[in-house]
């Protein structure tokens, strides 16, 4: 498989790799995918409780190069956005940015799921209501 330059760049130099304290009140954690499927993403955010701005985002991914690139890109994009703004990111935006071929679209879907799951977790923890679509993560 030929990879786009953007995928290779994120693979070689992944942004925001790491772990946040998942027990911290201001941290939301999304863990999506399954080892049996060959892809697991963990995406974590630290949200400013006043402004709801994502001040820090970290990821770790078990998966192909496109999955690593998708999650790396996702952390880059959500940093500095408010949680609601971050929820507007669609997997198709990731596909476009990374020029993913059709067989790799599910890797981008996983990244979108990871963003939603992390934000959902943070909202639940902090009692931020209604629009939290945490359950949507599993539903495809």
């Amino acid at each position, binding site marked *: 498989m030929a990879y786009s330059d953007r995928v290779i760049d994120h693979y070689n130099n992944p942004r925001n790799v790491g772990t946040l304290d998942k027990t911290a009140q201001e941290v939301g954690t999304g863990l999506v995918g399954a080892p*049996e499927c060959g892809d697991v993403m963990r995406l974590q955010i630290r949200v400013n409780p006043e402004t709801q701005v994502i001040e820090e985002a970290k990821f770790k991914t078990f998966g192909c190069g496109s*999955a690593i690139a998708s999650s790396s890109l996702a952390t880059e994009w959500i940093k500095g956005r408010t949680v609601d703004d971050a929820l507007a990111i669609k997997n198709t935006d990731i596909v476009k940015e990374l020029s993913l071929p059709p067989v790799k679209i599910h890797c981008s879907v996983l990244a979108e799921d990871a963003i939603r799951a992390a934000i959902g977790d943070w909202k639940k923890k902090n009692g931020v209501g209604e629009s939290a679509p945490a359950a949507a993560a599993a539903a*495809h």
Partner: protein
Amino acid sequence: MSTVASTVEAPAGVRLPIYMDNHATSPIDPRVLEAMMPYFTTRFGNAASRNHSFGWEAEKAVENAREQIARLIGANAKEIIFTSGATESDNLAIKGIAEMYRERGNHIITQVTEHKAVLDTCKRLEKYGYRVTYLPVKADGLIDLDDLARAMDDKTILVTIMAANNEIGVLQPIREIGKLCHEKGVLFHTDAMQAVGKVRFNVIADNVDVASISGHKIYGPKGVGALYVRRRNPRVQIAAQIDGGGHERGMRSGTLNVPGIVGLGKACEIAAEEMDSEAAYLRGLRDRLKNKLESELDYVHVNGTMEHRLPGNLNMSFVYVEGESLLMGINDVAVSSGSACTSATLEPSYVLKALGLGDDVAHSSIRFGLGRFNTQAEVDYVGAKVVDIVKKLRELSPLYEMVKEGIDLTKIEWQAH
């Protein structure tokens, strides 16, 4: 900032990219190419042309190749039928026997880690009213002979079990399988494509009735192969699957690929002379690679038995690292992976799954296929590079982090798609 890009440099004298995927195909040996060349140019005759020297020359070359192949496997030259490769040989053997022995029975026995050329042929026969038993394999990749004995019944006409597996390199106990078949009066076909020229293989000693062979894994050309068909004790009959001019004693029509056949013959001749020393050389390289990876990495897992195995094969899982991402990091080394992410179907290797490995371990597997032209310097470079990339990808792996923290991954409720 973290980085995955490797800092391991290739030493002087190592040319990149390195080819270490010799189970997929092998480069042609220069001696083979040299032998083939005249048959593309001046000696272009049709081996079936009986009335001029062009034809005689081609026929002589074909008969010489038949001898060279027969000698390598302990057969008689008359027992060698030329085909377009192992896929065709497998099809011809299985369908040809099924058709010819239909009166006697309709039951065929094979096993689950066969090449698709065997499995899909058997599946097609099931549509035509044949009954096929797919024997399981043990965790070491080998079949259980008791399972085979139990599977045989009075309708069994054929057992088809490969000599060496193309992914994990394990050697099935063909001698014992053949013995059992002969005791029961059942024919034994083996897809010997990966074994011939690599390990000792003798159709008499190994009790083989029909065997598939191909050129392109033994430093010969692609698109040419052979089928060994036993003529005595028992005499095996095969119904042709390609009709036409009646070439190859009626078993396989079509003008012979003379240059290819010359190349296959030459490749067999070289293998007969060099196999033993080459096997020792490859085993040395393979074990060196294995030791390097096992000593510097944790959570590595060899797939399939090391005891009964092709000398050039190493199939290893680097658990908690997905195979395609590993291939991407070692992109100047040609190897292959059993990961779903590398396959068109997004399914992990059925061979590895048959060993009882979890999908997650199958996703992490890499097949190293060492061959005649690999060097120790290449092996050292590949070893160092794999260690480097696996360590970096594990820094990126949530699974590795969780396992290191003592979390049992099987207890997590994953959101599988």
